[in-house]
């Protein structure tokens, strides 16, 4: 994967994450689970920010930023707090894999960005009930 391809792939991942968090955020009840609501809101803001950063990074790399799809499949029906939490966790786990791939395909500032995003996402997974792993983002290990 070229650095530009890695940037575009990661941007595509952020589009999906933003969409899913939008759905979760629309359904999670702050009164039913205030902690989850806060975590979801924070994650939504973070992924939106990354989406915007990556859009710039793609342009700097000479590419035309990939656009978001009209809609995305959401990992769970998101009807209960457990389903909402699970959808968030799956989203972060997918992002972890994408960031790890980006580390491998980039260098310098872009690689640093991906290194930081991966560490942040791994910690975020814990908040959504995910288990600690030895190699977050590298399921083959």
């Amino acid at each position, binding site marked *: 994967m070229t650095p530009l391809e890695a940037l575009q792939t990661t941007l595509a991942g952020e589009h999906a994450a933003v969409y899913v968090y939008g759905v979760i955020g629309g359904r999670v009840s702050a009164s039913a689970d205030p902690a989850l609501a806060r975590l979801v809101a924070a994650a939504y803001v973070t992924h939106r920010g990354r989406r915007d950063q990556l859009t710039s990074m793609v342009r700097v790399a000479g590419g035309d930023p990939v656009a978001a799809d009209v809609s995305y499949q959401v990992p769970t029906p998101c009807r209960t707090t457990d389903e909402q939490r699970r959808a968030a966790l799956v989203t972060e786990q997918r992002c972890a894999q994408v960031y790890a791939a980006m*580390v*491998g395909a980039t260098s310098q500032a872009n*690689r640093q960005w991906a*290194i930081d995003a*991966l*560490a942040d996402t*791994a910690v975020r997974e814990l908040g959504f009930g995910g288990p600690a792993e030895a190699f977050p983002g590298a*399921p083959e290990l």
Partner: protein
Amino acid sequence: MPSPDSSPAGLPRRTVLGGLLGLAALAGCTGTGPRPAGIRRPAATSTATDPDVVLAATVLAAEQAALERIRATMLRHPQLRRVLSGTEQVHDQHARLLAHAVPTSAPSPSPSTSPSPSASPSASASASTGPTVRVPPDPARALAAIAATEDELTLLGRRSSFSAQSGAFARILATMAAASAQQAVLLRRQPAPGARR
């Protein structure tokens, strides 16, 4: 739970990492045998000075030191064994993976690297506690010391990932740094051992 020396995909981890750093690293310094097609190697670089192998050795040493501290802490504070068993497994897996990338001429793994996380206390007692590991007598401080070690490992992992020449190796180092970041959070979430509930 996959065995320590194979990945969930069934591939020996040695193969996974060997493909990343070039089989020259695994063959020690002998360099005998045909080089597989596609493995390029800078002409004047020996295994000992390959910067990625040096990086692997550095991170490996840090992971082994962390393992020593974790095991010494489990020994000194048996009530912390359950809390620390996951942490131990993480760093054991890190050390095993990195050990495949470091030639035999590099500093040998610490004797405290026992074959399984459930090594008996007497075995780890005789092997592990070198003069450098001082475990705080207070269990909360002992946990905090390990959390601080995780912070250092995350930093080292991130820096190493940034400077790694091999993209695939950089990726693995970044995942290891992320794992330590998780452990730092988890260990700090623990209620103070012995605190009244």
